[in-house]
């Protein structure tokens, strides 16, 4: 089984860790994010320190430094994705072009999470409207 190691860090450590990993030619698997149970963003930088994944987490920050200058496109695309879908700001990241969202959406609404009605709420709403 592949091992997964969670390591909590502060946002000041993001760049030094990325530089250290890049120097050792460690592969950046992905930059992930999710909103945790407390409603705070949990951002993680996952490095393939084979056979394990070292996952460095920053919790509660909405603005973090970009590591695009260190990992190039391997970091820039994940950062752009998280910027569009979670509204997380990456200092130094060029966000003038879209990645996933339509261009007009970026222009009219700005970046950030698009509110999607959860399926359960939608089912409930439809049920009420149908008078069931």
């Amino acid at each position, binding site marked *: 089984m592949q091992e997964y190691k969670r390591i909590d860090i502060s946002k000041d450590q993001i760049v030094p860790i990325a530089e250290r990993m890049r120097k050792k030619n460690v592969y950046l698997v*992905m930059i992930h994010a999710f909103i945790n149970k407390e409603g705070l963003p949990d951002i993680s930088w996952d490095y393939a320190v084979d056979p394990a*994944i070292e996952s460095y987490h920053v919790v509660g920050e909405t603005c973090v430094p970009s590591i695009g200058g260190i990992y190039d496109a*391997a970091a820039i695309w994940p950062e752009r994705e998280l910027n569009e879908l979670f509204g997380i700001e990456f200092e130094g990241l060029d966000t003038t072009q879209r990645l996933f969202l339509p261009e007009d959406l970026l222009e009219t609404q700005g970046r950030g999470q698009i509110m999607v009605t959860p399926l359960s709420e939608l089912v409930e709403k439809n049920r009420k409207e149908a008078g069931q």
Partner: protein
Amino acid sequence: MSYIVPIGPYHPALEEPVHARLFTEGEVIKDAEVFVGYNHRGIEKLATERNAIQTLVLVERVCGICSHSHAFTYAMCVEAINGTEVPKRGQYIRVITAELERLHSHFLWLGIACHIIGHDSMFMHIWDERELVMDILEKMTGNRVNYAMVTIGGARRDIDDDLRREILDACDKLKAPLDRITEIALTDKTIAMRTKGVGVLPTADAIRLGAVGPHARASGVDIDVRRDAPYSCYDEFEFNVPVVDSCDVFARVVVRALECYESIKIIRQALENLPEGPINLGTKLPKIKEGQAVCRHEAPRGQLSHMVVGDGGLTNHRVSVHVPSFKNTPTVPFMLRGNTVADAGLIIASIDPCFSCLDR
């Protein structure tokens, strides 16, 4: 004269929507930009509303070619969070399906590459041989794609002795056509002229940009998750990781052709040593414990990663899917530079892109 040549998002040469802008000086591409996002289906969001078994069905629909890879990787994440030990026979069946999937995917790409080059007789020949793999997959799983072979805690369908012998026979039958295809790919003048020195991605750039899979290995980067971070039962099989350092489209053809031999080797070992015992842990709907896991699988196109966050309930708190094309597509503009417009389609195709996968 300088031109901006747009390709796509909907274009006869593209199987899936993507938009590329080529900045040219006459026939030569000076720079390029690639835009994705035309196929976004909100699969990650949908997964938060589904239980683990429903999510297996959902993530298989991320991609038609590597559907098993998605179910395999998602199941590994849930099993890692829950601490589930998968029965050995179930692990072997997962690996056999994964390698058959790699075979059909590589045959498919080799055929498409020949079609783009203009070598249509080779394209038809390769796809004809691919049918042998598709028939075996259909017999094993009931489907040509979306195999539904994975469940949380094992495999959904067993391989009986008759089927085991049949797959072994198919491996034997594949050997001669694969030899012929490889020989033609390596020696044919048309293929060489269209692929050698075209779309070069130097090793340093491949590492810097985070290229994965056969695309990285064709640029001299010796990476393969099956060997570097073994999962399931891959550590029980002997196989080589073909690496070629000419870094061009030709190298991508060679790597994929050689990888077919390695997949057959793995399938053969798995079938000859298929352990006795159960294939899964039963059909009880599992809860996803509170926790997080990131798992990687060497899909046909390269490293596929899933992240799953569980909150102790039946549904996923978060599922994040990142496919090899997400890693390989940013390398395309670098490969296009200095090449001619006529080669752009082949260079884009040489990463074996799946934009539906990428967009999720």
